């Protein structure tokens, strides 16, 4: 079977063309595929659409904001297009206010469910979230069991960048604690899934089949974070 192990992040992202949609997990700074984002930043692909919880944090670590700041991203699909505190003026916020980048604001649970739907072959779903708000405007409404819902569409990606704790050579993944967050559903939702592995890549058979968080059929490329990589 095809070898999924890549030696470097640069090789793993080398063929990513301009204009694709990438998915980048991470929440509260945990489970962010920083090495892959750094590699994509070096690689230089442009006109990208990013799917992520937010559009970059205020710290100086590599995240989606690194690509935004570099002008590689034309649109973000995320749950925050403004900071939680007005003082947090990220590169994205400045660019967004200047109309230099586009964005689609999606409630976090709807964002997660839309990715899950894309991965699960669901054509669309009804959710009560956002009913009665500005975000529901223009969306199809339907009353179900006495409650109003809006129709939401699946959100597929071209590439998902994943940060895992352990992987086996087939790409079965394990995460530690809240590192899991968006990782499993992004791995499902994207056509090509590239993983950076924090702890180790083991032989198949070393992970308990009952304890795998992402099945290897969803994983295409695996890179072990080298000693000089970004561990946080």
């Amino acid at each position, binding site marked *: 079977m095809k070898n999924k192990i890549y030696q470097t992040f640069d090789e793993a992202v080398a063929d990513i063309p301009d204009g694709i949609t990438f998915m980048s997990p991470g929440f509260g*700074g*945990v489970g962010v595929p920083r090495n892959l984002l750094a590699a994509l930043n070096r690689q230089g692909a442009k006109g990208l659409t990013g799917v992520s919880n937010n559009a970059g944090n205020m710290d100086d670590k590599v995240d989606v904001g690194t690509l935004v700041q570099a002008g590689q991203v034309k649109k973000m699909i995320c749950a925050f297009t*403004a900071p939680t505190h007005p003082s947090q003026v990220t590169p994205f916020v400045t660019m967004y206010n200047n109309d230099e980048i586009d964005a689609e604001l999606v409630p976090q649970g709807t964002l997660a469910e839309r990715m899950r739907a894309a991965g699960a072959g669901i054509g669309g779903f009804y959710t009560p979230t*956002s009913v009665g708000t500005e975000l529901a405007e223009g969306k199809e409404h339907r009353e179900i069991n006495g409650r109003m819902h809006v129709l939401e569409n699946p959100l597929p990606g071209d590439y998902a960048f994943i940060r895992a704790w352990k992987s086996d050579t087939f790409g079965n993944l394990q995460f530690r*604690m*809240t590192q899991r*967050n*968006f990782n499993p559903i992004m791995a499902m939702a994207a056509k090509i899934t590239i993983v950076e592995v924090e702890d180790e890549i083991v032989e198949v058979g070393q992970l308990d089949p009952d304890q795998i968080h992402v099945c290897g059929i969803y994983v295409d490329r695996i890179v072990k974070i080298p000693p000089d990589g970004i561990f946080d």
Partner: protein
Amino acid sequence: MAEKPRLERQAMCDRLAMEFQDGWIVNLGVGMPTLCSNYVDPSKEFINHSENGVIGYGPLAAAGKEDKHLVNAGGQHVTAMPGMSIVHHADSFAMIRGGMIDVTVMGAYEVAENGDFANWRIPNRKGGGIGGAMDLAACAKRVFIAMEHSTRDGKPRMLKRCKLPVTAPGAVTLVSTDLGLFEITPQGFKLVEHAPGWSPEDIQELTEAKLIIADDLREFRFRAPCKQ
């Protein structure tokens, strides 16, 4: 006129936490609501749920004792409690939409007497920070709000109708401000507890909506002094 002292944020959050019942699954919003987790009642256990898929976590980690992979919705390092479990984001919001969250406590810019509230979009500013607020507001069994009663420039936040875009319509049932505790009833805000020294008239003056005064109006309750 020098203003009378208002309630501390911790007291506002303690008061909401006193309403939590044993075994409740609680989701605390980023910022002020996190203070609810400082409230301890030995007769009750609460289960903390955070949007990023952790159920049953404990207090903030002591400096130097952080597990770098374990954070709450605010990105703060929390501790693992016995019985804690982890799910992914879609499963976490399945819990939220599925009605498993007994109460969510959030901050707000505005709350209206019809239970609407607004906390995701600042006026005259592009974009917003929704996070999980709309999911929680629409689907948690109860939505409690902790917020200052007035804006920094002294305007009321307790309104007839929200002026800002709402997070969810008709969702709020209880509001704790630095002036008192308010239930949202079909008739509007009911003042049930007032800050010490603040009369209903004082509070009404700083409230846009007309307050209903509870028959059994009483002084704001503080938690028993901490034994430690």
